């Protein structure tokens, strides 16, 4: 009995020591050797917007600015934001709605640049409202009283759908939103559990491939032609302490965006590297517009849409907080 007790105590001590090694979040540090590339920790979601980063890196745009990207995939804006604040990442990719909601609650977030903007073309954009072919729903106004699936409530898709319902003369509060995982929406639509879904590429292509569905609206262009849907965020602290990094980041982004707009096929090819999407679907996919330029007004319009959806209190204040300190 005695030696068992001793062994257990020793093991416990060992484990406690290991806990210390389990460690806290890793913060990025400037490398010791000058002239070496500065590692930038990026938290993102595996979407085509990130393929633009990978492509830009391949073309050497980031290296030209002395940066080396270390991209890690997470679960989405609402989950990446706490990680950013923790110091786990230097920059994260996030939908703009979570960013606005975050700054309103006092989180010290700042936009470095848009990550993706509406294509500007209501005939071809990255998100769509899909209904079954034989549905009575013809236009967004018909969504009143119907159930629409989105992958996150009170977030980007819900806001885009509400906007197009308003534009079509309907009452967005009469629409029933339900939260479903992206892969679960197809089955739910087929079985009639939901009347419509609002989803993004490549899922739009995936569901439309089956051939028995129809699109009634293309977002975000139909909601707002210059809708900034995603942004690259950093903390206020970092933006103030290291403006050089943000400058370099934006410069590299500008080059990457310009290249991506001209070489769409290469972007799609890049996406095949980290995503299991069917190449046929990739090929048909519509693309966002990429630019580092944005105006306060662009962000304010989104903030106002968010307020109309009852999930933001003060659009002016949130906008100011979000872009204050941004180099744009």
């Amino acid at each position, binding site marked *: 009995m005695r030696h068992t007790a001793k062994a257990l105590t020793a093991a416990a001590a060992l484990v406690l020591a290991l806990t210390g090694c389990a460690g806290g979040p890793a913060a990025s540090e400037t490398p010791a050797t000058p002239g070496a590339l500065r590692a930038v920790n990026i938290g993102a979601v595996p979407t085509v917007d990130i393929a633009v980063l990978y492509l830009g890196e391949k073309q050497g745009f980031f290296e030209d600015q002395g940066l080396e990207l270390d991209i890690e995939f997470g679960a989405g804006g609402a989950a*990446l934001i706490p990680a950013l604040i923790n110091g786990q990442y230097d920059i994260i990719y996030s939908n703009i709605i979570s960013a606005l909601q975050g700054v309103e609650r006092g989180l010290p977030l700042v936009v470095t640049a848009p990550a993706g903007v509406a294509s500007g073309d209501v005939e071809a954009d990255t998100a769509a409202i899909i209904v079954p072919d034989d549905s009575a729903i013809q236009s967004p106004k018909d969504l009143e009283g119907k159930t629409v699936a989105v992958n996150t409530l009170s977030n980007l898709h819900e806001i885009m759908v509400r906007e197009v319902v308003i534009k079509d003369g309907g009452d967005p509060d009469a629409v029933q939103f339900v939260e479903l*995982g992206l892969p679960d929406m197809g*089955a739910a639509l087929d079985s009639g559990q939901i009347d419509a879904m609002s989803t993004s590429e490549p899922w739009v292509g995936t569901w439309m491939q089956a051939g028995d569905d129809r699109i009634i609206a293309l977002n975000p262009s139909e909601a707002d032609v210059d809708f900034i849907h995603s942004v690259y965020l950093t903390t206020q602290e970092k933006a103030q302490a290291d403006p050089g990094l943000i400058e370099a980041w934006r410069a590299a982004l500008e080059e990457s965006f310009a290249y991506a707009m001209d070489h769409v096929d290469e972007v799609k090819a890049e996406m095949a590297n980290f995503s299991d999407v069917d190449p046929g679907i990739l090929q048909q996919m519509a693309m966002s517009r990429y630019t580092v330029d944005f105006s306060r007004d662009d962000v304010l319009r989104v903030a106002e849409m968010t307020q109309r959806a009852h999930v933001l209190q003060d659009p002016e204040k949130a906008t100011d907080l979000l872009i204050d300190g941004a180099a744009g």
Partner: protein
Amino acid sequence: MTTTSASLPAARERTRARGRAEPFLWGLVGVVVLAIALQVVPALGIVNPQFFPPLDRVVVAFAGELATPAFWSALLATLYGWLLGLAIATVAGVVLGVLIAGIPIVAELLNSTIEFLRPIPSVALVPLVVLLFGISMQATLVLVVYASLWQVLIQVMYGVRAVDVVATETARSYHVASWRQVTRVIWPSILPYVFVGIRLAATVALVLEITGELVIGSPGLGKQISLAQTSGAVDTMYALIWVSALLGVVVSIGSRAAERRTMFWHPSIRGEV
């Protein structure tokens, strides 16, 4: 059944051997029936095979996973998180249990707090933990420790209360120092309870570890399941689900066996399931 007195021991041995084999054989029958059902029900289209594939496709996906390094690192991550969480919960549970139950005033004062905190489902803490730790192994670790701590703590507290009062009184009357009291008298007496607590905590810890990986996204089997689900790789998803279940069964059987070997006389071995 008539047996001559000469062959009685042999007959008894045969019955005992048959008795050992019988549960195993019938258990095998049960598992085989399950496997057949898992193959036939989707294959016949009773359920949509696109969403619940037949067993053969799942097995193929499983074989594929075994060849993928990502699977093995996920498995290791799960095991690491589980063991670490279990270890922390055990140490904390023992220390706190001894302190709380050992000092009567403390036990009374903390009783209400413990009874309030204990029923809070650890999954309710997921949003909080994500905010504090982001999507990391530490976030899930907090969940695992929180849930398993209670199992160990409660058992240790039972154990401390049951400690041989005569032994403690004797030690006290001989002015044995408190520290020695703890190591020589209390610790060996509560050891069986500690083991019961570890056994109960082991299963809880594994479930919470995988749950945390699934819901939070920290590295491990749970995260692989979630990735498989979001990319529509249904076969792989079910393969990983069965792996998690089998892991749970192994842990449950293993901890019960380990405990039985050391604590065969303890009543709770026979009582709890």
